[in-house]
């Protein structure tokens, strides 16, 4: 194909990808190296509410002539990346430029050191759990998904419809609702603790790290298995019957046919499911927020969310988002290289 006609074929999708993927990412990066803050001034106001009137010393935005709050923006370089990772100078660009506070200035550096410590363990803890979740769920998702696909493939035609629908259910349920359902099963007075108590076992699932983490991993497997199942089940329909026949005539057992014919045929699909799941798993969010609210189980994505929610700092959250994207890229690299090599050989 001529270069010109190739370009014309590819142009629309390239333009779309640029617009919908590259541009937002560039925007996020642009935000992450900046910080904008309102110009605030200290004021004392009288405030009346249903509970009476009081004087409050607070801060208000300085308003410009058009009645809108004045904002100052500045370039902060990679400061937010260092903060999110818990590295570096500790003081952000904004505070580095500011003179130390008059009273109690001596106490702040010690605190800052401690906070740095706290922050770095926070991020490392989140990263550790996110990776644990990712790598603990992936093999089970593939294995259980494949076993289910095989089972459905071999079940009689009549039962396949209902069987498939039932298997897909966890995937269809909204993640928040699914996580809530799991939480209700495992919290105080829930079904599982009740069942265990019948055997004299008293178990509090959200009370220590291992069981809280296990719960979220179990949720992850439960939620994603149907995806692996449906992809692999579709793949099973396309296994060449003549190869299977030939293998049978050559005296291959069912196990050998599975290992030497079916699985190699499905290999690209295993890679596909793994790729998608790695991307999804690294962004684990709902089960953490719903099941444990982050106790013992903070994930990278939850940290970003809290930066936005608690600190109301979209710039720092952007840095966290860029880092998350980078993390996913690192995770996917080995698989992508493998696929690329196969493609070249192909």
């Amino acid at each position, binding site marked *: 194909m001529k270069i010109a006609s190739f370009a014309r074929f590819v142009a629309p999708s390239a333009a779309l990808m640029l617009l919908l993927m590259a541009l937002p990412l560039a925007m996020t990066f642009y935000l992450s190296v900046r910080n904008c*803050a*309102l110009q*605030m001034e*200290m004021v004392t*106001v*009288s405030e*009346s*509410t*249903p*509970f009476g*009137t*009081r004087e*409050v*010393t*607070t*801060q*208000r935005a300085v*308003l410009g002539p058009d009645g*809108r*709050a004045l904002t*100052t923006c500045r370039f902060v370089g990679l400061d937010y990346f260092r*903060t999110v990772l818990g590295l570096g100078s500790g*003081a*952000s660009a*904004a*505070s580095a430029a*500011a003179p130390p*506070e008059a*009273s*109690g200035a001596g106490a*702040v550096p010690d*605190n*800052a050191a*401690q*906070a740095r*410590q*706290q*922050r770095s363990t926070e991020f490392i803890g989140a990263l550790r759990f996110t990776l644990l979740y990712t790598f603990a769920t992936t093999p089970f998702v593939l294995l259980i998904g494949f076993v289910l696909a095989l089972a459905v493939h071999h079940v009689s035609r009549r039962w396949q419809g209902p069987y498939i629908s039932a298997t897909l259910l966890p995937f269809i349920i909204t993640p928040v609702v699914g996580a809530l359902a799991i*939480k209700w099963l495992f*919290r*105080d*007075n829930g079904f599982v603790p009740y069942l265990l108590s019948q055997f004299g076992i008293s178990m*509090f*699932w*959200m*009370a220590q790290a291992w069981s*809280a983490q296990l719960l979220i991993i179990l949720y992850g497997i439960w939620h994603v298995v149907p995806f692996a199942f449906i992809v692999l089940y579709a793949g099973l329909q396309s296994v060449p019957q003549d190869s299977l026949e030939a293998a049978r005539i050559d005296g291959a057992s069912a196990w050998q046919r599975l290992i030497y014919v079916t699985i190699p045929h499905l290999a690209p699909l295993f890679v596909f499911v793994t790729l998608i799941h790695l991307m999804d798993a690294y962004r684990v969010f709902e089960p953490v927020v719903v*099941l*444990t*609210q*982050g*106790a*013992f189980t903070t994930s990278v994505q939850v940290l970003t969310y*809290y930066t936005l*929610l*608690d*600190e*109301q*700092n979209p*710039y720092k959250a952007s840095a966290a988002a860029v880092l998350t994207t980078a993390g996913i890229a690192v995770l996917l690299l080995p698989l992508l290289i493998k696929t690329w090599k196969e493609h070249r050989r192909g």
Partner: protein
Amino acid sequence: MNRPTLRRAVLASATLLALAPALSLAKCEKLSQPKAGEINIVGNSFPALQHIAKEMESCSQGGLKVQFKMTPRAREETEQAFASAGRSPFDAAVVSMGVFANLDSRGQIQPMTDLVDKYRAKYKLEDSMLVRVNGQVMAVAFMQNAQNLFYRKDLFDKHGLKVPTTYAEMLATAKTLKEKEPGIEFPIAQTFAKGWDSATEFANLFAGFGGRFFKPGSAQPDFNSDAGVKAFETMKAMTAYMTPNFLASNSDDVMNQFQQGKAAMGVLWASRASRMDDPAASKIVGKMAFAAAPAAVAGGPSATHLWWDGVVMPKNLGADRDTVFQVLMEALDEETVARGNDLTIWVRSSYKPTRFGTGVAASAKAGAPIWPSQPFFSLAHGEIGKVIPDVLTGAMSPKAALDAAAAAYVKAATDKGFIK
């Protein structure tokens, strides 16, 4: 569809149609000269708000269309809309006082003093409903909320226990109940979940111990103090009488522990009180009573905070101001309160208090302060919420955790321009 089924279906829909006007009790008939156009309002989702939202939407008439968007992300959507450079996508919002503090500090709320004066008589607006900042009416409040003490009156009577008025008494009572009452293994239930919930518990106790969040006249932190350490120590002492799952216990879980009869007392939101008597979900109908949140120190104020919810209009309002205000007031009138009397604790004087609101009134009477309204408070609150699990599991000492939270807060507040 066979014939009898079809006939039944037609009959059913006809009946529904006939009933429809009677079913939609919401009325909106006092609007004077509404301007045609679209009015969009945003808010959270809870029973009292659903009631009000229906009332607002019933104002759609002629060329006027009122739409209420209920979303769990109301806070984020409201803040984005009010901050946008052009016309705000929402012409009004229902906010809690925490969100109000943020919006108002950024100068994004439209004063409605003139409209209040114009319509005061028509909508019977009461002074207690008007939220004023330096005399200007910035919001109209309609309901209040507070965390107050829930306790099992039947069990307290059975063992001759007094209602605790301090946290020390509460711990002693918990000890007695744990020893004497089989089936109550964990007498106390409170919202100690990581983040917002437990940070709010801390704030209640901290204020109760006389703590000051910030140095006077500045946004510099002052919560890494003795009062902070005491608040953490009290929380830690309570965990001995709580389910070991406390770090994952939010309002829903605490409510469930009460409803299942597994916990005997605790400080929880008044908005959850009526659910104690919901026969579909509760095994303890009629057995829960409500009192002031205990004080942190004997003779001190009730260790909780008072909250209000109200309506605000953005400065970058696009719709007709007068019409928007009337729609809001229609939904906050006496009639609406009368029809939804038991849904919440209304601010209007025509509200008839139920037993579910007694805890809030008692807490207010026992000196509970109002939730802090500085815009930088939510940053401090957020940082405190992050370190609480480390304190309660013993991974960090209270003082070290508070210092870490204070340092993290300084950084966050500096980035936001509160600390220079």
